[in-house]
């Protein structure tokens, strides 16, 4: 195991151990105590296992999990940013269908291996996005009658 996954393992298992210990602390200190009987049981096991995992990561004895390579992170980051903006802001802020259409088009364009310089490629991407949106509208607005947030646009 190289140093990068080891450090990543320490950070990841440290975060989980932090969550585990916090949950255990809350479970044992919050009132009414009767409402936290089961969480106490769970959080005790959670905290012990999380600290065990953290200890193993610190000692460099973690055997499972490859972590995330720099290359994978670089490749996923643009898509991840688009997805996060789409889900946590645009879907509500712009309207579900508008945000979905934009996010879909941007993601397809970002990860499509076809060259960006060809007009035909862009036409194809627009057609795929339009087709997908038509299916989504038909399914969710037409068939399932789901009323989605409209906000600024649609």
């Amino acid at each position, binding site marked *: 195991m190289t140093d990068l996954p080891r450090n990543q393992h320490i950070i990841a298992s440290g975060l989980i151990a932090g969550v585990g210990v916090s949950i255990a602390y809350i479970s044992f200190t919050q009132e009414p105590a*009767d*409402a936290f009987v089961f969480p106490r049981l769970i959080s005790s096991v*959670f905290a012990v296992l999380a600290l065990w995992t953290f200890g193993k990561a610190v000692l460099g004895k973690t*055997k499972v999990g490859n972590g995330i390579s720099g290359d994978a992170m670089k*490749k996923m980051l643009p898509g*991840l940013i688009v997805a996060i903006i*789409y889900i946590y802001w645009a879907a509500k802020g712009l309207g579900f269908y508008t945000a979905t259409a934009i996010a879909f088009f941007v993601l397809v364009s970002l*990860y499509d291996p076809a060259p960006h310089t060809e007009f035909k490629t862009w036409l194809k991407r627009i057609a795929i996005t339009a087709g997908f949106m038509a299916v*989504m509208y038909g399914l969710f607005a037409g068939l399932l009658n789901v009323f989605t947030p409209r906000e600024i646009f649609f």
Partner: protein
Amino acid sequence: MDFLFYMGDVFTPINFGLLLLGTIGGLILGATPGLSPTMAVALLIPFTFQLEPQQGLILLGAAYTSTVAGGAVSAILLKIPGAPANIATTLDGHTMATKGEGAKALQLSFLASAVGGLFGVFLLIFLTPVLAQWALAFGPSHLFWLAILGVTVIGTLDSSSVVKGLLSGCIGLWLATIGFDDIMGAQRFIFHPSVSGGINVIPALIGLFAIPQVITMFTKGRSSDDAEVISVKKHPIRLAFLEVFKRKAALTIGTLTGSIIGLIPGVGGQIAGLVAYDQSKKFSKESEKFGTGHSEGVIAAESANNAMVGPSLVPLLTLSIPGSPTAAVLLGGLLIHGIFPGPDLFMNYPQVAWTFIDSMLIGQILMCIFGLYIAGLAASVARIPHAVMAAIVLGLAVFGSYSVQNSMGDVYVMATLGLGMYFLERFGFSAAPLVLGLILGPIAEANFIQGSMIANATVGIGSYFFTGWLNWLLIVIVLASISYSVWMEVAQRRYTTKDDAVAKEEALS
């Protein structure tokens, strides 16, 4: 023979139409690499809201059955298993295809899947009522231990690390406690308004299974898959029938192995296919031909992974313990209709239970018929670029989660859990025990509290939860599954180099 009484309900126009839709759709989804049966079924759940319970279950059951079988198409024609369950099929199936026997391999795989699948569903039909009767004797302490058993078995057997598997289960159990406590009405761990009503299982399932796949597709960047679809020459179906029944040993070993493995909670189709392949090879008179495009390899693997489907639902329908991650998602499909599986399912909702089971029986036959005809189309769909697939899955996940309660909170929960799960998976944690913890958490807690109340008024908590042969049996199984997994982990480490482990993990991800 209750199943015969309700058989007619499968053939009502709507039910049969949904069965056809689920079967054909499932075959296409199954053939698509990256769309596992669990994820496909999770994404389908929002479409069942407006359906009657049995209609929704028919759709989900058909999709479950045919996604497992559909995965063989891309395994054979593209050398990319559509689902982990089809890994063993690739070994001989793709070699057959490269030799110009693609049609034969597909026919063998669908016929063997149908035989295995039918046997598995018959096992479901005959075992479920017997176990359901037995399970009526279960009290709160037994149900508590059963829920813990469900989480620990999947946590230990389905994960590459026992500690991380159990930890995933604990995270799921903790997530299940978020919201208002049922008895005192107290707030627990409500750190954001989106989770004030607790974590809804459906958006959580969608997020945990779909979002990590989307991010994994992002990590491939702008590369194309370049998978070449091998053209399929015609092959008479009559000869495929004769071949399947000529290879009785492989068919029997595959079917029995798959059925037995399906009954064990937590052990999925991936293992069923590989174990059946390995056993068939051991008992075959032509063992040296395995791996070179031998029909027995395809028959054993495919009969096993479909034979597993029916039995994996036995613990779900009788004890409300899902036998596999896909069964856990099906449980979510039942819960949204207010139906809680368990011992009294067959008494309170016999029509729902039996129509669903009967539809799986008919679904196996439909899957075989349609599988043979749409394999070519499914293989073409399997070539959808990952950029488009990632965007489609993301869009479906957002719309599907929102439509559960028309709430943006559910979308945020779905995305946050999915994002977290992707990172957890990269560090050796797995989604299945977390999902089981999330689903079984309320069962475990309700029975723990109920049991504690009974215990306080009678024999005391220690005696109530730790005495009696059934409590003991369940505790022993919990401990045995943990011990066995620890032993396997240690033994595997002894014989596997670190490089091998890393390579294997990369291949699986």
